């Protein structure tokens, strides 16, 4: 049995046994911790992992609670229909809000969530149907088969089971194709798009998932309290959910549990102790102490308290993967191009940034089985040209063709899908993720397992194939020994090679490499040159930007020289070396 399942099992046993040991009051407290944990778990995926901050989770808890209150208390229907209604409404609301706000840069989302959190709170308090600020009372108990869930220990059982199941499923999700996409959102969404990840979809997925978990928590909360009013769904509570994960450790699922437990217990202790200490005004002081605590945690333990505890646990061993019998992924159909048609062609590309002309009338062509090098002094516009070719920037005018099809104006994701893959001048790996997982991100487009399969672990066969492909590419570029090392701990040159493996993982026909040899030692360069020669023989087109002239001259079939955004010269390595204009640009002209 692996470590994760063991921990989950221990947690489940602990929760189930807790009511036998604890006093009733503490059992109730434990139930609250469980309910808060459910919300906080969603928030870990959304905020800690995905980097999308929400202050509005309490409003989703409220939707879950009010939906079931209306259905079960006002309409007299089954609480299970209430659950369905709550999840359904939450789904719709979250999709709408997500589509509206997730597109925005970092800080607008939290502000947006703050605003609709408030709007929903006042809506709860003012809709006559929802009983105003007095709320809705006398909710029925939940019936499960013949079992009425009415005592605190019954709730402990159901909350415990749900909590453990959620932990398991979210753990599965993060360790999957979809999970890798979510994990790339925070630091490298542009790279993920270039690898074929639909980042908007991944954001929406994380957002909706977190909202649904909040609504689920609200459903149980409503039937546990048996009365629903707006107070527990205010923005203050939304803020507290966020504090929980900050306190516990926003980047890990267990951090959510730790944070929820610490915060709940801490509040309880403050409520008990402070009034005795200072005589009255406990609620006020609670706020103050609480806020100060959060500020101190952020100042001195930015990653929360869980990492401090984890130092005392043995660190997990990298899991041994046996991927050799995994069936290879299907490859792209290699259609034959007419021999004179280039794979990738740029025609008269112009890019202006305001008054600055970064690229002016740039044309080039790369044929299948050809290595073309783009050289030129710093600031010549090489990276801009790369960005025009890969769809990161739209050209001001001019056209780009891939296999005869116009691709200028397409998104980087669409271009990646056609078979163009790239590396970046400034390495964009996820430093905390292993090399294997980083490279597997390149194969994202080649899998199709969705969220449900990932949550329930039905995606393992495909996942093995993806990881096997990643492992194969890592071996191919000669980094097999670093497969399970965090990518951030590799030397910069090696990280560039990891980027090449990641690009190869997408089964490209055209490879764009931005300074692949920078930071490599001599024999590493030799290995890279061999790899590129091998790719050329396989019929790939390679376009590379490089400053190392020995490397370029020994490898490239064709060279394009840029200066001041324009094409200065083009030809074979021999021709370029003798071209007076090129010599002038590189060595200074003869006056």
């Amino acid at each position, binding site marked *: 049995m692996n470590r994760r399942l063991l921990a989950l099992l221990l947690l489940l046993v602990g929760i189930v046994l807790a009511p036998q040991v604890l006093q009733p009051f503490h059992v109730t407290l434990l139930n609250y911790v469980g309910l808060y944990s459910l919300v906080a778990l969603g928030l870990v995926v959304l905020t800690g992992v995905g*980097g999308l*901050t929400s202050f509005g989770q309490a409003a989703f808890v409220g939707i879950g609670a009010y939906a079931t209150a209306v259905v079960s208390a006002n309409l007299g229907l089954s609480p299970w229909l209430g659950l369905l209604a709550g999840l359904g409404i939450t789904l719709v609301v979250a999709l709408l809000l997500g589509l509206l706000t997730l597109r925005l*840069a970092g800080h607008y989302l939290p502000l*947006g969530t703050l*605003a609709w959190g*408030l*709007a929903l709170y006042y809506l709860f308090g003012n809709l006559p149907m929802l009983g105003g600020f007095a709320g809705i009372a006398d909710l029925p108990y939940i019936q499960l088969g013949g079992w009425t869930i009415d005592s605190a220990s019954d709730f402990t059982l159901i909350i415990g089971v749900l909590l453990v199941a959620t932990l398991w499923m979210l753990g599965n999700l993060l360790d999957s194709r979809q999970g890798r996409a979510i994990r790339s959102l925070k630091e490298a969404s542009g790279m993920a798009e270039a690898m074929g990840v639909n980042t908007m979809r991944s954001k929406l997925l994380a957002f909706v998932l977190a909202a649904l978990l909040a609504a689920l928590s609200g459903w149980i909360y409503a039937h546990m309290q048996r009365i629903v009013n707006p107070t527990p769904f205010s923005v203050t509570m939304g803020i507290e959910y966020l504090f929980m994960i900050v306190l516990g450790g926003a980047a890990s699922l267990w951090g959510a549990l730790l944070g929820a437990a610490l915060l709940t217990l801490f509040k309880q202790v403050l409520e008990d102790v402070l009034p005795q200490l200072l005589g009255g005004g406990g609620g006020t002081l609670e706020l*103050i102490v609480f806020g100060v605590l959060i500020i101190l945690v952020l100042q001195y333990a930015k990653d929360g308290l869980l990492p401090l505890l984890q130092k005392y646990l043995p660190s997990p061993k990298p899991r041994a993967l046996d991927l050799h019998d995994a069936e290879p992924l299907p490859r792209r159909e290699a259609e034959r191009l007419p021999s004179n048609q280039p794979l990738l062609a740029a025609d008269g590309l112009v890019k202006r940034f305001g008054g600055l002309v970064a690229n002016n009338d740039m044309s080039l062509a790369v044929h299948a089985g050809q290595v073309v090098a783009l050289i030129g002094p710093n600031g010549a516009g090489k990276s801009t040209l790369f960005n025009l070719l890969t769809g990161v920037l739209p050209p001001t005018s001019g056209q780009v063709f891939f296999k005869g099809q116009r691709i200028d104006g397409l998104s980087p994701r669409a271009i990646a899908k056609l078979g163009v893959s790239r590396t970046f001048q400034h390495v964009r790996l996820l430093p905390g993720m292993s090399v294997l997982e980083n490279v597997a991100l390149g194969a994202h487009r080649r899998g199709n397992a969705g969220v449900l399969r990932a949550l329930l672990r039905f995606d393992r066969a495909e996942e093995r194939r993806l990881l096997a492909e990643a492992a194969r590419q890592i071996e191919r570029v000669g980094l097999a020994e670093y497969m399970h090392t965090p990518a951030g701990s590799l030397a910069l040159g090696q990280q560039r090679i990891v980027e090449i493996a990641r690009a190869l993982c997408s089964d490209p026909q055209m490879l764009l490499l931005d300074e692949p040899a920078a930071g490599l030692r001599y024999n590493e360069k030799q290995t890279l040159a061999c790899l590129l020669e091998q790719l050329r023989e396989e019929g790939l087109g390679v376009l590379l930007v490089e400053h190392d002239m020995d490397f370029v001259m020994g490898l490239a079939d064709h060279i394009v020289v840029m200066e001041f955004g324009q094409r200065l010269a083009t030809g074979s390595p021999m021709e370029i070396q003798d071209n007076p204009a090129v010599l002038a640009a590189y060595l200074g002209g003869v006056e």
Partner: protein
Amino acid sequence: MDATIAAFLLQDGLTTGAIYALIALALVLVFAVTRVIFVGQGDFVVFGALTLASLQAGMLPPTFWLLLGCAVAGCVLDCAIAIRHQHLWRLPRILLNYLLPSTLVWAALSAFDLKNLPGLAQVALTLLVVTPLGPLLYRLVYQRLAETSVLMLLIVSVALHIVLLGLSLLMFGAEGFRTEALSDVALTVGEMQVSLQSLMVIGCALSLIIMLYLLFGHTLYGKALRATAFNRNGAQLVGIPTRLAGQAAFALAALVGACSGILIGPLTTLYYDSGFLISLKGFVAAIIGGLASYPMAAAGAFLVGTLESFSMFWASAYKEVIVFTLVIPVLLILSLKHSHSGEEH
């Protein structure tokens, strides 16, 4: 609704709008310099109004104790750092920097018969007490985190707001206050009454907005502050003291907040927790300005104020719902404008 009511609502809306404009302005200012989304801005409004109220009641304002507490905490922190680095020669300067202002404020507060001071002197004292809180809070809360992400800073801001909220309740209690108006003259223009206080609010807000606009757009000092926001390291390299820039931004924010409180105090009853909603409405306005443009933020604020005042008339229970829902279409427009969203924030 007839024209008189509409005119009255408009006047009311423009007055509150002016306050939101000031808040929006302070938010934009703080964000532009420090990347902090300063949720506590509204708390300064409350501090301003309630400090003035306690001065008018002839009491030593409780915010003074807050000032003293922050000053002592900052002093201890900096002394501890100086001692740890064995820079003992810096100690006298640190003590002087932190403790002298509070001592002077205390001297001023105890020297006068607060209740019978002229209104403007009370206002000046209020500003003296509240304004230094800005840089002190920056020192205590944000300075150590100046390099972290906007999101981290936002979470800290929310935590700080909660602390200020608790302190506010502790200092002023749960009941509301309304300050005495600086002027109770009302002018009659045609059919309607225009209170001088409203005109003053709008006038002060507009002149503050213009001053800040000029400061940031057309002076070297303002440009230095903006450079800090754009690229901290770069600004540091060309010799801008980024730490002081942060403190200056917070001092301005506290000043603007206190001014807003003094202006709005006679028009509406403020409670210890009124700050949050005021902040958020300022945010809505600032968001309309894209957190970057002062004139747009000001325009947004007047829109929010007017909308609030009219929705109060038509559907008073839903006024907050309406105001905060306004954010959504605004965000939609912004998101359509930014459809090529930038990389890694």
